[in-house]
Structure formats: structure tokens, C-alpha cells
């Protein structure tokens, strides 16, 4: 349960950053936090108490002693994707800073209406 609470609070913190902070970098960080929260949540879903990693490292391990492997593998993918997105985002932030000389999202509003 704690995991869930932790994950969800992470998501909310990230959301707060994204929605309220004006600095582009902080928004990107917020996105990353949301991502982490989501990943954590997913892991938490697959978690089985007192289980080990889903690797057949010894004979005694059975499937019910392991955590669910699917979420873990999915999260792995999700992390990679999140990383890619963050990288693109940071690249864009750099370019925006080059052009606008500011990181304030309220000032980067050329395209509107």
C-alpha cells in the first residue's frame, strides 16, 4: 500500500510541477517525476510480498515466489521511452532557450490563437 501511496504522490508532485511551475526545466523534471511515479506504480502492482526477482536463479524458486515479471519488463521499456522523451524535451528546452533567451513558459507563446 505504501508503494501505491508513494507512487501516486510522486505522480501528483510531478503533475504539480508540470502544471504550476513556469520554468521549462522544472516542467521537464516534473514530467520525469510523473514518469517515475508511473513506473513505480506499475512495479508496485506486480509486486508480491516477500518474493524475489523473477529470475530462475535457483531450483527452489517457483513462479508464485517471484514477483510478476511482465510489469517489470514493461517498466523497463517505459523507462527507456521516458528517457528518450526526456532527452528530446531537454533538447527542445535548449533550443527554446537559444531562441527566446528565457525559460519562462509564459513568455514562449509565439503560437497562439
Amino acid at each position, binding site marked *: 500500500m505504501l508503494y501505491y501511496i508513494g507512487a501516486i504522490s510522486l505522480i501528483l508532485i510531478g503533475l504539480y510541477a508540470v502544471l504550476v511551475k513556469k520554468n521549462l526545466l522544472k*516542467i521537464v523534471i516534473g*514530467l520525469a517525476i510523473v514518469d517515475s511515479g508511473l513506473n513505480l506504480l506499475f512495479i508496485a502492482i506486480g509486486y508480491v510480498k516477500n518474493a524475489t526477482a523473477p529470475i530462475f536463479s535457483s531450483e527452489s524458486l517457483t513462479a508464485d515466489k517471484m514477483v510478476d515479471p511482465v510489469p517489470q519488463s514493461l517498466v523497463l521499456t517505459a523507462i527507456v521511452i521516458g528517457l528518450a522523451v526526456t532527452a528530446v524535451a531537454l533538447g*527542445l528546452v535548449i533550443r527554446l532557450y537559444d531562441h527566446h533567451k528565457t525559460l519562462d513558459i509564459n513568455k514562449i507563446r509565439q*503560437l497562439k490563437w
Partner: protein
Amino acid sequence: MEFSPVHYIAVPLFAAFLIPLVGKVSKELVKLIPGLVLLYLSYGSIMLFPKGMENPIIEIIAGFKPPFGIALYYGATAAFLVTLVTLLGFVIWLYSYKFIIREPIEKYYMLFMLLITGATGIMLTGDIFNLFVFLEITAIASYSLTAFLRDKDSAEAAFKYLLIGSFSSAFFLLTVMILYTYTGTLNLADLASKADMIPANAKGFALLLVIVGMGIEAEIFPLNGWAPDAYSQAPSPIGAVFAGIVVKAAVYAFIRIIFLFFKTPEVLHFIVIIGLITLIIAEMAALRQHQIKRMLAFSSLGQMGLVILALGIGTTESTSAALFQMFNHAVIKAMLFFAAGYLVFHSGSKLIDSVTGLGYDKPITSFFFSLGALAIIGLPPFSGFWSKLNVLISIASEGEILIIVLILAASVVEAVYYLRIIGKLYTRKEIDSNPRRTPISGLLAMGILAIVIIVIGIYPDVLTQWLQPAAENLLNSEEYIQTGLF
């Protein structure tokens, strides 16, 4: 080698990785590779198309049978859309061939190939997590392509797109989580068969998540704030890609999921209304745009609203009409973006006012733009008319006269802003004749689309015969589950 649906994903993906390497050797080759790939895929599509129309082809990857393995589901709907994507992709490549002259070309084509991979992947995959992955591939490629021009505005547009796109992926990931938690499976068919296992409130929550998550990609109001920016700031062929390929894939995925899991009258009703709102607001917003491509973007939103609306009606006729509309929108909007790209290029400004008088200086490009505009308004004898007619008939058979009236009111608005541009094009004005001409590849691309528009406009039966099976496939979840699970 027998063509199989896997090639749709594998070949462009492979090409995408090949391109940077080839780029070290020859730029020309870089330009040619996507064309060859898309030509191959188009050829394959045409070969595979009749088969897919008859029976869904299930392609299993890595040897595990569904529901455990990852499967590709090449049903009638997917066949229809994938064929559209590949053919349109080829035309877009043709157009890009001379249009994209700015470095780095290899990155452009790499991302373009990735986009194709993602889009076909979304349409073909039978696995919800793969769907997520392909969505992300598409999204990341789109972000990057939006920013391709490296100027102030494109970066801004890309950032907005990214910001909202991240929400989309987050919401969709949550959906996947919920579905997985209660069913323990990721295969769509399997999921659908086990949908009863999900408690009602969780299912409802998943529905909301899907609506928001996929709605962002499907550009429903009010989740489409990113779209006008991205459409208008991306290079014109990419605008065409967005309008013709990306959003089609997203809408397909959206509707597929809705139909599989949440097909209740209330949900369909909601989709109809949200589609209608999207349509009306987008058309109204388009009315007062000053930039040609931004206007096209809003128009695109409106058209997708119409598609979503028609899908929401949920009958075979409406679905086939929606698919028809998707097809037309893809073709016509691609042509409009193509023509707009060169109009902007020739006039040197994105503003609508600056195209004044170009109709005489650049007659062919302007002609294609006008043709596209008339077609998208829904004038016979162009293809846009038939799909609109079919949509209206399908709505009328449900007895919703008011919706028809509202759609047509929006169409009047649409007519106004398109005609405004046509009028500007053909207003006589002394302009310095621009020695630059629209290159032959661009004209060829537009010409192909124009021929498609006119041929289907005069003889729509070319297309309509395929719509019925495609629509039935999309509607029939039972069949999907059965064939998807063997």
C-alpha cells in the same frame, strides 16, 4: 520472400537504422531508401490487401502463441488503413524528395521511417503494451520532426506537443496497468475476452483514462491544443503525415479500444457529442486564422471530429462512412498540406494574405490547392462529397437531424475559410514573379492525389466495396477475439 505483415514494421524500422549509416556514404541514397521501402510496402499492401479483407491474418512474433506472445493482427480495418498509410507514405516521400532540402536529411528520413513504423505498428499490433510502445515511437518521432526546422516556433510547437504527448502516454500507461492488473494479460483479444473480470469502477476509470490518453492523440476537444501548433510548424510533408497517418492511427487505436472494451450506448453517445464539439469548435477557430497551415491544422481537427462522430454512431454504415472519411481526409489534407507547403515556400510567408495573386504566378500549385479545398468542403464530383454523404446518411438513419444540421453548419464555415484562400490566390495583384518553380516530384505527388480525389469522386465504387468488410471488422469484437486467440 512472401510478404507478411511483420514487414510493415520491420522494414521501415530497419531502414530507419540503416539511413544514418548510409548517410555517411551518400545523401542521394538516403533520399532513395525510404522511397524504395515505401514502394515495397505499397506493393506488399496491394498484394496482401485482398487476403486481409477476406480473413484476418494473425502474425505471431517470436514463436509464442497468443495470448502470451506478441501478435500482429492484420484484419480488414487494419488492411485498409495500413494500405492507406503505405501508399500515402510513398506519395509523401515523393513530395519530400525535393521539398526537404535542409540538412540533416538523413535524420528527417530516419524519423519519417520511424513514424511509418510507429503508425503501422499501432494499426497492426494485437498487444496493448506494444500499442503503447508504438504510440511512443510515433510520438517521439513526431516531436522531433515537428522541431525539424530548428526555428523558434517549431521548437515551441514541439515542446507543447511533447508536454501534452507525455500526458497522453502517462494516461495510456495507466490504462494498460489497470487492464493488466485485473486480467493479467496484455493481448488485446485476450483482454477483451476477459473484460468481464474487471470490476465496473475500475473499468470505468480505465475508460476515462483511455478517453483522455488516446483522446489527446486523436485530437478531440479540448485535448488538442498541441495539434495546430505542431501541424503548422512541422515541415509541410510532416503536416501531411500528421493529418494523414498519425492521427488516423491514433483514432483507429482509440476506437478499437473503445469498441473492444467499452462499447456501451452511453460511451458511443459521448463520443458522438465530443466529436461534434470538436468539429464545431475547430471549424470556428479555423475561420479566423491568419496562417495558412495553422488553418489547415484546425480544419484537420474538425475533420477528425467528424470521423470520431461518425464512429461514435456505431453502425456499420457509419463506421464505413467514417473510414471513407478518414481516407478522404488523409488524401485531401495531404494534398492541401503539399500545396500549402509550396505556397508558403513561394510567397516566403506563412500568412494567408501573402498568397495573394499566387494563382497566376504558380498556377499548378494553386490549382491543386483549390482542388483540395473544394474537395474537402465536400463538393461533388470530388471524393470528399461521397464520404460526407455517407456520414450524413448514416446519421440520418439514426434519426439525428440536428446533428446533421450542425455538421452542415460547420461545413458552411469550412467553405468560408477555404474559399477565402482561393479568393486570395486568384486575386490579381502585381507580384514579383518568383523564378522558383514547384519541382516535378512535388507536382507529381499532388497530381497523384488529385487523380485519386477525382477518380474516387466520379466513381466511388473503387473504394466503397472495401469499406464494408473493414467497418464490420472494426465493429465486430467477437470476431476479433475469436480470430485473435485462434
